[in-house]
Each structure stands twice: as structure tokens, then as C-alpha cells.
């Protein structure tokens, strides 16, 4: 199978500190994968690097999307190619209403979302609750018509009902009959995975993916039992 996204031996620094230490990852078209890891393991950094955040310096390795090397491509061009990211903690943009941004980035004219209409007239992420931020992020990535969406901690800070609501929207909008979007769920708790059953679950610890496992439940069980610290000793450890 041709990979939609292929990351080869990625070594990344920020402010002189090595954060990603040789990451390899492959995601096929329409495939769902998960990335689990403890705090500060490099999960969000990997997502930001895939989208081209200039804060991070790529010292080594490549990012290939649809066969094209995008390692040095600016963020906006990566988005145009079809990569989207929902931020874990998106910044507030004062004075700019959500609909104004959606109008600029939407691939459809007169885009009218079914969910989150009440957020459209509000300034982006200004005084948004945790749940509202997640819905706003979903609306934004939806409007860009992506081929790959990275959900960075979309389930963090949400109660089970809200996770269910978010999962329902993702299923309807990205995994419907008409299109199948590839998804990478970055999650600390794994709560969202029960709704999607990823094909591969990756575990990242200290900037390296140390495990790739087909059964996400097994990974969650091991993490629950031993914690991430003992992950390296686990029998699921991939070579």
C-alpha cells in the first residue's frame, strides 16, 4: 500500500533541545492510527512538525505526503495539500470572529456547519469552554477538506458525553460513505479510541516511537498496568 504520510527518521529540536529522536511513521489513505504517550513525550511536537511549525527545527529526516517531500514546505501549503490539525490548546484571536476565519479558509462557498453555529459570531477561542474549543477546531479542519486529520488530544478535558458528541461528528464528517479521511488520534488517555478502533496504535516515549500494535485495547491495558515508564519492558514492544 502507498503511504499517504510517511515520516522517516525525524530528528527535531526546539530551543536547542532534542525533542524527536528519530521518529518513523506511516499512515495509509483512509487509515486510522493512534499515537499514545506520556506528557512531554513529543506527541504534540510531532503533530506541529507535520504541519510545519517553524518553531521546531528539523535536523534530520523527511516528511513525505502523497509521495511529495514536504519537509521544508510552509504550513499553508501543507494545508492546501490536505493535512489538517486540531490544536490541543488553540490560541485566542481577539477581534476575529470564527465565521470570518471560516470564510477565508473554507473550500466551499457559504459554508454552513451543522454543529457549533452558536460559536460563529464569537471571537475565536475567546472565553470558549474546553468543549467549545474542540468544536471550533473541528469546524475549522472540516472547512479545509483534508485528506489527513491529526486530532491532538481532542478528548482531553471532555466528559464522556462530550467525547461521544465529538466522535459522532468525526464519524459523520470524515468517515462517511462519500469520503474516508485518514486520521491520527494523539491521545494521552485513549478515551476517544473506543469509538474508532485504530488500525495501528503507536506509543511514543521520550521522542521515539517504541511500540506499534494492532490491538489498541492491549496497549491501553499495558499502559494502565505498568504506566508509560515501564512501556519499554512490555512484551508488545516493537523492534
Amino acid at each position, binding site marked *: 500500500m502507498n503511504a499517504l504520510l510517511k515520516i522517516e527518521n525525524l530528528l527535531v529540536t526546539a530551543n536547542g533541545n532534542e525533542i524527536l529522536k528519530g521518529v518513523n511513521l506511516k499512515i495509509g489513505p483512509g487509515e486510522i492510527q493512534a499515537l499514545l504517550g506520556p506528557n512531554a513525550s513529543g506527541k504534540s511536537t510531532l503533530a506541529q512538525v507535520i*504541519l*510545519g*511549525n*517553524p*518553531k521546531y527545527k528539523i535536523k534530520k529526516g523527511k516528511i513525505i505526503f502523497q509521495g511529495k517531500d514536504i519537509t521544508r514546505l*510552509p*504550513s*499553508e501549503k501543507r*494545508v*492546501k495539500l490536505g493535512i489538517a*490539525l486540531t*490544536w490541543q490548546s*488553540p*490560541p485566542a*484571536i*481577539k*477581534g*476575529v470572529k470564527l465565521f*470570518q*476565519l471560516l470564510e*477565508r*479558509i473554507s473550500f466551499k462557498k457559504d459554508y454552513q456547519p451543522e454543529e457549533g453555529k452558536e460559536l460563529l459570531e464569537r*471571537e475565536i477561542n475567546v472565553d470558549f469552554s474546553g468543549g467549545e474549543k474542540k468544536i471550533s477546531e473541528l469546524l*475549522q479542519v472540516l472547512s*479545509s477538506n483534508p485528506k489527513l486529520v491529526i486530532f491532538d488530544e481532542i478528548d482531553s478535558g471532555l466528559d464522556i458525553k462530550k467525547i461521544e458528541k465529538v466522535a459522532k461528528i468525526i464519524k459523520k464528517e470524515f468517515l462517511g460513505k462519500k469520503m474516508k479521511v485518514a486520521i491520527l488520534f494523539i491521545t494521552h488517555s485513549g478515551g476517544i479510541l473506543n469509538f474508532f478502533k485504530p488500525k495501528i496504535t503507536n506509543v511514543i516515549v521520550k521522542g521515539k516511537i517504541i511500540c506499534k500494535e494492532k490491538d489498541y485495547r492491549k496497549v491501553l491495558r499495558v499502559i494502565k498496568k505498568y504506566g508509560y515508564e515501564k512501556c519499554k519492558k512490555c512484551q508488545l514492544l516493537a523492534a
Partner: protein
Amino acid sequence: MKSVKNANYWQLDHKVKKILEVKGVTILPSPRAWEKFNWTRKWFKEKPKEGYFVWVKKQTSFPLTTCVTIASPKISQNLTNLLVIEKNIKTEANVLCNAVRGNLCGSHRAQGKLILKEGAFLEYNHFHKWGEKDSVEPNYEFILEKDSKLIYNYQNLLPPKNLRLITAFHNKESSSVQANLVINGLNSKTELKESIFLEGKNSQGILKLRLVGKKKGQIEAKSTIIAKSPSKGHLDCQGLLVDKDSKISLTPELICQNKLAQITHEASIGRISEEELNYLRMRGLTEEEAINLIVSGFLKS
């Protein structure tokens, strides 16, 4: 402002092109008003050379519009304007001063007096749209009589090479002003001096400045509230520097001459947040589009 076609007063260079009077509103060139109405001499001080006189005596159901334009090279306008709103009249004025092209090297000087009589209300929307070689010096004084209320919105959509904007508000008893000035200092030198004089008991004044320094824009703003009576005032000055070659200088000043007055200020100058910029770029906006969106949001905030 849709077009000069709807203007009640339109001056092109030095020529009055159009006056459209409406019921209950007298509109004249200022020199003519000096001759016709002796009482205007109290405000004009000397016979004006050019400019407009607008006297609102009855309620209008639509905004009054004036437009002063520079259309020829090296024109030097020297206007004296007078706007009088009679007692308990509520109205809105849209005021556009502009140059039709960017390279006319024009000069626009305006002395303005705006009188809000007892209980009057005015929303005054003042737009500037200049060429990059123009020099502009408006000096406006608002007299707010008892119980009157003014909302003043100034916006320079296209800045001139040099802008020197002086605005003073004199608040009598129980009058209030809310002044919002939005300056886009794009490759221009801007000097602002705003003063609110809280002269009457229970008068109120809020001055909000939003300044953007971009493409070598230099902005110097001195904002003052002087409380002479039991009154309330607040200054809110915020600057945003978009590039390293621009400069913003803010000087908020509070002078309290009455122990029952309460005047406050907040002032800050910042730069565009890298996080916000990257966020918008990860939504597909180019760096320039993202900066423009953040700046437009800042100016509205």
C-alpha cells in the same frame, strides 16, 4: 459611506461641488455662515476661508454626510468647520476626508468645532483615506453641553505621509464621550494628541486607542484626561507593532483636580504572537493573510 452622490456637503479641492440641505438642517460653506449668522462668530473667531457649516435643528432620520476631497496635485486645503446640534436632537454624521490618488502631495488642514447642545446625541464617524505623499492636520474641538452624548469613531483607512491629529473634548455636566481612534500607521508618521476635559459634575469620558505600526510606521500618541469635577474617565491605549522598523510611543496622562473624580488608564504595546500566526497559517492562510487578519481583529478589539 457609499459615495459622494449621497453627501450633504461635498468639497473638491477648494470648490464646493454640492450642498444637499434637508429639512431642519442648514448646510452652508463656512464663509457664508459667518456672513449670515452673527452667532457663529463666537465659534469661528475669524472669517473662514473654506469649510462647512452644518446646523442641525430638527431630528433627521438618516446620517448627515460630508466629504472633502483632494483631487489635484499640490492642493493646500485650510478648512474651518462648524457643526452645531441643537437641544435634544439625536443624529449621526459620516465624515470622509480623502485624496483620490496616492501621489497628489496635498495638504489638508482642518479646524473644527462641534457643539452638542443640552441633551443632544451625536455619533460622529470620521474616516480618512489619504495618499502616501499627503500631509494632514485636523484639529477638532468638541463642546459637550449638559446631558449630551458623543460617540466619536476615527479611522484612517489609508494613512497620509504625515498625520497630526489633535482632538479635544470638553465635557459639561452629565455629558459623556466615548472616543475610539483606530490608526493604521502604514509607512507614515502619525502624531496624536487627544484630551478629555471632564469639566462638569458627573461627566464621563472614555478614550480608546488602537494603533498599528507597520512598514516603518511611526506613531506618537499623547492622551490626557483632566478631571476638574466629580467625574469618571478611562484611557485604553493599545499598540501593535507588526515589523521591526516601526515605532509606537504611548503617553497616557491623568490629571485629577477633584478628589471625587475617578480616572484610570491601561496602556500596552505588543507584537504579533508567533503562536497566533502559526495557528492561522496551519489553517491555510499565508503569513501576510494571517498578519492582516490579526491586525484587523486587534483594531476591532
